[in-house]
C-alpha cells in the first residue's frame, strides 16, 4: 500500500516534467508553424506586424553568459583551490558556508544592487578604464550608458561564482592525498603540484561545475532584466544595451496582446528550457564521473 502511494508521487515528478515540455511545445505551436527554423536567425522583433525572430535574444544570452564565465571561472577556480588546498579545514568550511549563503541571495536583490551600484560603477569607473586600456578593440567601442552586456555579465558573474566555488572545492577535496605527495616528493612547489597534478585530476568535475554555472547564467532572469537595457539589438560593443531570452519573457509576457506574440515568447521559453536541460544533464554526468573515477572520463 505504502509502496503504491509513494510510487504515485514519485511518478508525479516524471509527469510534471513531461507536462512542462508538453505545454511549452503545444503553446508555442503558432510561432513554430509560422516562422519555422527561421525563428532562430531572424533579427526582427516586431509585435505590431507580428513578425518575430529570436536572434537578438540568443545573441544577448550567449554574450552575457560568456562575459560572466570569463570573470567567474578564474575567480571561482582560484577561490576553490585556496579553500581545498591551502586553507585549514575549519577556515575552509567557514568560508564555504558564507559562499553557500551568497548563493542563497535572491536574484532580485542582485538586480537591485545592479541598478544602484554596478550600473553607476560601469558608467564612471570600469567603462572608462576599459576604454583607456583596450579602447581599440571593437567590443569596447561606442557610447557607455552603464546598462548593457558588460554590466549584465558582471552581475551574472557574481551570481554564478558561488556554484563554481562550492562544486569545484568538493571535487578538489576528493583528489587522493598521495597524488599531491608524489608531486611534492619529486620537488614540485605547492603551486606546481596543485596546478599540474591536482587540478588536471579533477578537471572533469571542474568542467561540470562550469556547465552548472553556465546553465544558471543562461536562465537567470531578474538581475539581468534590471541591468541589460532591454533593447532587442545585436551590437558588437559590450557597452551597448541588449536583451536576453529570459529578460524578454519577463518583460513582455504580460503585455503580449496577440496569440502569435505570446506563442513566440513561449517558444523562447522552450529554447531556454532545452539549453539548460542539456547543460545540466552534462554537468551532472561530469561531476558524478569525477567523484567516482578520478576524472579519467576522456
Amino acid at each position: 500500500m505504502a509502496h503504491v502511494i509513494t510510487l504515485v508521487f514519485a511518478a508525479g515528478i516524471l509527469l510534471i516534467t513531461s507536462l512542462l515540455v508538453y505545454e511549452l511545445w503545444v503553446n508555442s505551436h503558432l510561432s513554430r508553424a509560422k516562422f519555422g527554423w527561421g525563428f532562430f536567425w531572424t533579427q526582427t522583433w516586431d509585435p505590431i506586424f507580428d513578425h518575430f525572430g529570436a536572434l537578438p535574444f540568443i545573441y544577448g544570452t550567449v554574450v552575457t553568459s560568456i562575459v560572466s564565465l570569463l570573470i567567474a571561472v578564474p575567480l571561482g577556480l582560484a577561490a576553490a583551490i585556496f579553500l581545498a588546498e591551502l586553507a585549514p579545514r575549519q577556515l575552509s568550511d567557514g568560508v564555504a558556508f558564507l559562499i553557500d549563503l551568497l548563493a542563497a541571495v535572491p536574484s532580485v536583490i542582485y538586480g537591485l544592487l545592479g541598478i544602484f551600484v554596478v550600473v553607476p560603477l560601469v558608467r564612471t569607473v570600469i567603462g572608462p578604464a576599459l576604454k583607456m586600456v583596450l579602447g581599440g578593440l571593437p567590443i569596447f567601442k561606442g557610447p557607455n550608458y552603464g546598462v548593457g552586456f558588460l554590466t549584465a555579465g558582471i552581475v551574472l558573474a557574481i551570481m554564478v561564482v558561488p556554484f563554481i566555488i562550492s562544486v569545484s572545492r568538493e571535487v578538489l577535496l576528493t583528489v587522493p592525498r598521495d597524488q599531491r605527495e608524489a608531486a611534492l616528493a619529486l620537488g614540485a612547489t605547492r603551486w606546481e603540484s596543485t596546478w599540474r597534478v591536482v587540478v588536471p585530476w579533477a578537471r572533469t568535475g571542474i568542467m561540470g561545475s562550469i556547465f552548472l554555472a553556465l546553465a544558471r547564467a543562461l536562465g537567470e532572469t531578474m538581475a539581468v532584466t534590471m541591468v541589460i537595457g532591454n533593447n532587442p539589438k545585436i551590437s558588437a560593443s559590450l557597452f551597448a544595451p541588449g536583451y536576453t531570452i529570459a529578460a524578454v519573457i519577463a518583460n513582455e509576457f504580460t503585455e503580449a496582446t496577440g496569440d502569435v506574440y505570446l506563442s513566440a515568447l513561449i517558444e523562447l521559453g522552450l529554447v531556454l528550457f532545452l539549453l539548460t536541460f542539456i547543460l545540466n544533464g552534462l554537468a551532472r554526468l561530469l561531476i558524478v564521473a569525477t567523484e567516482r573515477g578520478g576524472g579519467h572520463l576522456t
Partner: protein
Amino acid sequence: MSQARLIWRRVLNALMLTLTGVAAFGVVSILFLILGYLIWNGGRSLNWDFLTHLPKPVGESGGGMANAIVGSLKLLFLAAVLGLPVGLLAGVYLAEFGGKVFTFVIRYTTDLLNGVPSIVIGIFAYSLAVLPVKHFSAFAGGVALGIMVIPITVRSTEEFLRAVPGTLREGAMALGASQWRTIATVVLPAASGGIITGMLLSLARVAGETAPLLFTAFSNRYWSQGWAQPIASLPVMIYTYAIAPYDDWHRQAWAAGLILLGLVLLANVGCRLVLSRKGMTRSV
C-alpha cells in the same frame, strides 16, 4: 641559470597562492558588501508605516508594503501545501522502495527539474493555472512556487531517510509492524528533524523568486481578495519599485530588499547550522 629558474618557481608559487587567497576573500567580501549596503540603505527607509500600510497612489510618497508582506506569506503557504507533500512522499519512495532503473530515472528527472530556469516554470504555471481561467491569481503563483519546492524536498528527504540505520527498520519489522507502519512510526520520526529543515530551506529558496510570479500571481496595490485574485509579493514589489523613476519608491525597494534578504539569510543560516550538526553537508 638553474638558480634563476628556482627563484622564478618560488616567486610564481608565492604569487599564485596569494592570488587564490585574494580571490576567496574577495568573493566572501561580496556577501558582506551586499549585506552592508542593504542595511545602510534599507535601514534608513524602514519604519512602522512601511510594515503596516498599503502602497500610496503613484506620485504620493509614504505608504508601505503590508499587503506584499502578507502576500508573500500566503504564496509560501500555498507552495508548502502544494509542493511539500509531493516532495516528501516521492523522497520516501526513493529511499525506502524503488528498483534500480526507475529510481535512477526519477532522481535524474528531479535534478533536471531543479535546474529548469524559474522563468520557464512561470510559463508552465501560466499555461496550467492562468490560461484556462484567463486571469492572474494567487493560486497560480502558488502552483509555480510549489513546483519549485518539489525537487529540493525530494533530495533532502531521501538523503535523511538513507541516513537512518537499517537496524531500526529491522527492529520494527521484527516486532510485527507492516512496512507502512515502520516508515510512518519509526523511520520518518527518526529523520524528521533533518527533513523539516530541508523543507524550510526549500521554502527559503522560493521566497525570493520573482520571475515565476510576474505572470502568475502578478501584483496588486491593494489587499488581495481571495486566492483567485492577483496578489502582491515582496520580490515583485522590489522589482517594480526598483525600475520605477521615483526616489521614494527606490527607498521602499531598499527597505523591502532588506526585509527579504534578512528573512532568507536567517532561514538559511539556521537551517544550515542544524544540517551541519546532523552531518549533512549540503542540499543545494
